[in-house]
């Protein structure tokens, strides 16, 4: 993908030309910052985020830590890496469980992001940890989303609450409310609510997601976002933050070769922690999010 080599190689080449000069000038640093900017844009980091980020790096790169370094190129890469990890891991945290069960987890995101699959992954993972999760079919829109969740629940070996047939029939707000009541009596300690995919610009469906949230007051609202997404990540993340106010982010399809700049965009624009990485179609393909790995991936190091 990176036909001109990795950022690290490119920066080393830029700096080797400067090696003899001793001290770096602002103009020298500007060339470097341009390389970093291009690497981030190639990785699909959103432009406003790239601007803020490169400004911060520029400032540090002009400081003594770079000028006094034996290898200024490596030092700049180190700074970029540190700053990235800072944003990606700024608010690292684990799943929040309710003091009084059931813990309610709601999933939201664009169409095809990986929500329903994630519902199964979370369920399997929580079950292995001794929990008794209940999957709730609140996507009553997408054709056969209810069946898909039923199959996924069966694969995970957990119960599913699916009172409505879907395909346009049934009220998702009501299903969500009833599910929480059902969980309390049937002794499920975690409720995972799958919702329909929706666009950030779809005011009506965004309001529906907000209504589901209000009806069940979830402990976590996880925003699922596809690692392949481009510059639209910012507008989408903001729309979901306003519409449902998510508490954490899950980055999906990280098993591909997308550099995943969306991770940086979303973390920096919303300030919400990225909690999990989804890394395949199988229910076991799921892990905590590692900011350092993600930083290297974005920079193609």
């Amino acid at each position, binding site marked *: 993908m990176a036909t001109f080599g990795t950022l690290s190689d490119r920066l080393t080449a830029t700096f080797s030309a400067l090696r003899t000069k001793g001290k770096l000038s602002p103009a020298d640093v500007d060339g470097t910052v341009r390389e970093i900017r291009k690497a981030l844009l190639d990785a699909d980091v959103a432009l406003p985020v790239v601007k803020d980020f490169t400004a911060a790096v520029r400032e540090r790169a002009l400081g003594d830590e770079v000028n006094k370094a034996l290898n200024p190129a490596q030092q700049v890469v180190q700074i970029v890496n540190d700053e990235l990890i800072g944003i990606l891991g700024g608010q690292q945290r684990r799943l929040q469980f309710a003091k009084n069960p059931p813990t309610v987890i709601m999933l939201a995101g664009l169409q*095809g992001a990986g929500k329903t699959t994630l519902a199964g992954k979370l369920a399997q993972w929580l079950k292995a940890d001794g929990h008794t999760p209940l999957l709730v079919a609140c996507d009553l829109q997408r054709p056969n989303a209810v069946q*898909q969740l039923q199959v996924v629940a069966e694969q995970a070996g957990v119960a599913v609450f699916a009172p409505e047939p879907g395909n346009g029939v049934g009220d998702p707000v009501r299903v969500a409310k009833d599910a929480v009541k059902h969980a309390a009596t049937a002794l499920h300690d975690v409720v995972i609510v799958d919702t329909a995919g929706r666009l950030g610009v779809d005011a009506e469906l965004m309001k529906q997601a907000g209504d589901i949230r209000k009806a069940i007051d979830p402990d976590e609202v996880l925003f699922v976002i596809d690692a392949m*997404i481009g510059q639209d990540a910012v507008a989408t993340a903001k729309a979901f933050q306003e519409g449902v106010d998510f508490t954490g982010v899950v980055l999906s399809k990280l*098993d591909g070769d997308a550099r995943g700049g*969306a991770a940086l965009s979303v973390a920096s624009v919303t300030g919400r922690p990225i909690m999990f990485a989804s890394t395949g179609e199988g229910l076991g393909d799921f892990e905590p999010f590692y900011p350092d790995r993600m930083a290297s991936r974005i920079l193609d190091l």
Partner: protein
Amino acid sequence: FTSPTIDEGTWDDLETALLGADFGPDLTDELLDELRAKVAQFKTTDPADLKRMLREALEERLAAHDPTLTLSNRPAVVLVVGVNGVGKTTTIGKFAKFLTGYGRTVVVGAADTFRAAAVDQLATWAERAGVQVVRPQHAGQDPASVAYQTVQFAIDNNIDIAIIDTAGRLQTKAGLMDELGKVTRVIEKLAPIAETLLVLDGTTGQNGVAQAEAFFESAGVTGLVVTKLDGSAKGGFVLRVQQQTGIPIKLIGQGEGIGDLTGFTPHVFAASLVP
């Protein structure tokens, strides 16, 4: 544009717009260079001229390939491929409806035998479109054999067009990509493939190019479908895809309804890229 005459601010605005539309840094630079040269050549200072020139430049590039679908074989076999969740199954539902609107008979084949409820999802779309569906005979059946049965069904029943759904797969999964080659070879025992359509999600960024290159290699893609353009994403990456692979854009998806599919018109797409 914010400034009344073309100045550095105008160029910054333009760069921001192009990058924000997912053209990527290289194509953005290329377009900026081309436009700077044109602005100098025509000695214009009016941002409105610049905007028009940009639209023309985009339209010219978008129109460089023929967007016509070739569906004249009988049966015309259409294979639909792409990474996970881009809108393959939905596109098939819409496309089937689109074709029946032109009086064609259609059968769809559920060769995604992997994803949960994928067969039922396609069957729902077939019902909405009023077309027949060939389902696997058992769970997890070899996708190539479902594809084969679908084409056979079209031949036996004199159906004009057979559209085959496949499971989503990331282009980096060698085994799954090889499987597509097998599906293609098995279909071609019965009939040549008229179109292999690669579905690209309009919200995708620069990874779209890698997707197209890999699917072209493994499945001989003949056309692109860009979906989810009803959102705020512009889909500028598809211009890079078309330029780099030479595969024409043929269909555009703009919603989850059965009527939300149109042919590709360079003029309309260029206008949506530069509103």
